[in-house]
């Protein structure tokens, strides 16, 4: 399902999102005017380097931006509700219940002092009424076996450090999905794992997505993962969305020079001997940014027009790019 597929209401709609951080060197606009739509049932990939604002954008959705950061403006609509207008209490009922999020490192994301069982049970108990149809224990066991934890009844009583990295990641997924959320935000779900385990965890995630009818946002710096698992890709750079569209078409014909750079810097076994072309330079400091294209300093095709604020251009076919000459076209 893509954005072009007629008027489908997005499940999540982020508009003009601003998330700022007060730091020693000044105000950092980590997320600066981000518009993202996530459609029901899709698996959307959000790619970008560290500091591109991809994680902060989705932490904002759950209201989890921590001080010294805050949401400075914009709108986040989810399933017909404006999340930024919710009270803390109302937002708590969305977290874990309707929108779940997993993080990069399961070892640090699971509480070392609590058993795995208690960490999955508490989310079930938090969101299901006391007179729930089925006891939380049964649901927890089912969820753990669903993510492929053998002997879940025994494993429930163990602590996170007693599991392998891949198993811990599965447990984090089980906890996140325990309440059958409509949307899962998986923030770098495999970056801390061995390559062989990465594929297992992602395949599991995709199987669960179909089985539970879930919408997934996969946040990653690995365009290869997006190419394999996501129907649509959103490319972020320095706090802005620079390109989005159906994965296949974006990868075959990237419109933004940054996307082209990302694709060029992926090492490919199939093209051994071909030189990797890294993107020169670094992500700009997000303090006191000039009103210009943020990729200008690193862009191989920058020109005078890039010195102004660049709007998103609609390229048709559900594609958009923030460039004065998308795809090198004039």
């Amino acid at each position, binding site marked *: 399902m893509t954005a072009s597929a007629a008027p489908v209401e997005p499940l999540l709609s982020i508009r003009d999102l601003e998330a700022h951080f007060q730091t020693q060197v000044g105000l950092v606009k980590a997320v600066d005017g981000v518009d993202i739509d996530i459609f029901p049932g899709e698996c959307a990939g959000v790619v970008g380097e560290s500091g591109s604002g991809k994680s902060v954008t989705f932490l904002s959705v*759950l209201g*989890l931006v*921590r001080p010294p950061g805050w949401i400075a403006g914009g709108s986040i609509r989810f399933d017909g509700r404006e999340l930024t207008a919710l009270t803390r209490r109302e937002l*708590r*009922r*969305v*977290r*874990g*219940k309707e929108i*779940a*999020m*997993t*993080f990069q*490192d399961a070892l*640090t*994301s*699971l*509480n*070392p*002092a*609590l058993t795995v069982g208690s960490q999955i049970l*508490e*989310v079930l108990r*938090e*969101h299901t009424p006391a007179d729930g149809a089925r006891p939380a224990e049964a649901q927890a066991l089912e969820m753990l076996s669903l993510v492929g934890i053998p002997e879940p009844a025994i494993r429930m009583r163990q*602590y996170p*450090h007693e599991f392998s990295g891949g198993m811990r990641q599965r447990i*984090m997924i089980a*906890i*996140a999905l325990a309440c059958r959320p409509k949307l899962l935000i998986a923030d770098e779900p495999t970056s801390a794992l061995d390559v062989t385990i990465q594929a297992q965890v992602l395949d599991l995630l995709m199987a669960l997505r179909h089985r539970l009818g879930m919408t997934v946002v996969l946040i990653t710096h690995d365009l290869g993962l997006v190419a394999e698992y996501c129907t649509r890709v959103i490319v972020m750079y320095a706090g802005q969305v620079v390109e989005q569209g159906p994965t296949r078409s974006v990868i075959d014909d990237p419109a933004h020079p940054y996307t082209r750079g990302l694709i060029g810097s992926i090492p490919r076994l199939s093209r051994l001997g071909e030189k990797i072309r890294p993107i020169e330079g670094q992500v700009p400091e997000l303090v006191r940014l000039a009103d210009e294209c943020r990729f200008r300093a690193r862009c191989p095709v920058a020109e005078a027009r890039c010195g102004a604020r660049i709007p998103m251009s609609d390229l048709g076919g559900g594609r958009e790019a923030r460039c004065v000459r998308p795809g090198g076209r004039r």
Partner: protein
Amino acid sequence: MRLGFVVERLLQLVPVLLGVSLVVFLMITLTPGDPVEIMLGNERATPEQAESLRREMGLDLPPHERFVKFVRNALTGNFGRSFFHRRPVAEVIAERLPATMELTIVSMLIALALSIPLGVLAAVKRGSILDRIATVASLIGVSMPGFWLGIMLILLFAVHLGWMPVSGRVDFSHEVPRITGMILLDSLIQGRVDTFLDALHHIIMPAVTLGLAMAALLMRVTRASMIEVLQQDYILFAEAKGLGRARLLMRHALKNALIPTVTVAALETGYLLGGNTIVETVFGWPGLARVIVEGIFSRDYPLVQAGVLVIAVIYVSVNFLADVLYTLLNPRVKL
């Protein structure tokens, strides 16, 4: 817990106790002053009488033989007779130790009741007025000498306002039959509410004096570790699960944050169980520390030696318990 760990700890106790005994023995032996002279005092005693007393107390032997004899007797549980109290040292210590234990327990309860909530609150409201007040207060608490605070409390609440007793554990009219030796506990067991209240009335000021200094330290430890824990990924993940603030703080954060607090509290408990000489003296608290100090003044060698040994055993045991407690809080640690 492995049996090996317990055995290891017990074996560690041997050199500690031997070392402590030797050091105390040397210090006593090297300190000028003759117990015989002190005991005979102004009484006109003949040199023969003094000599016979010296022999009776075993002081006629050369120092190394005295030490070996002490160790050999101690191994069989015989700590000798107190020169001054003229009864077995074990009896004197058994009488005084409960008073110190009682004071320690109440002080620690006061310290924990103050420090943990305040430390958590200061960490959660980091940088707020409340945090700053708590930080300044704890700084004052840490730097205030116990004897000064004790004297000030006595002056204000006992002498000036007359709300509190000046010293002692309980009014003489309230003596209860001894079970554990801890009056608060004994009076409760025997249903003597009036005695319990009177003992509570007596213990408040010394316990507050000790408790405040400890609370200050423990609050700072709790605050620092709580701040660190609150920045951990697992707190963010727990928050993303939609857990409430109370659950997040009490269950997810506090259990991890308490690990350093428990360690420090255990060390402090061991220290307090050794008795706080100054506070026991200021408040006339008949505890272990005071009886040892009195023993030093009267050159009551057996009493001092046994008393210090008991303190060493307590200290090592409390540390052992702290390690056990540590594993309960931190499942990653296996003993």
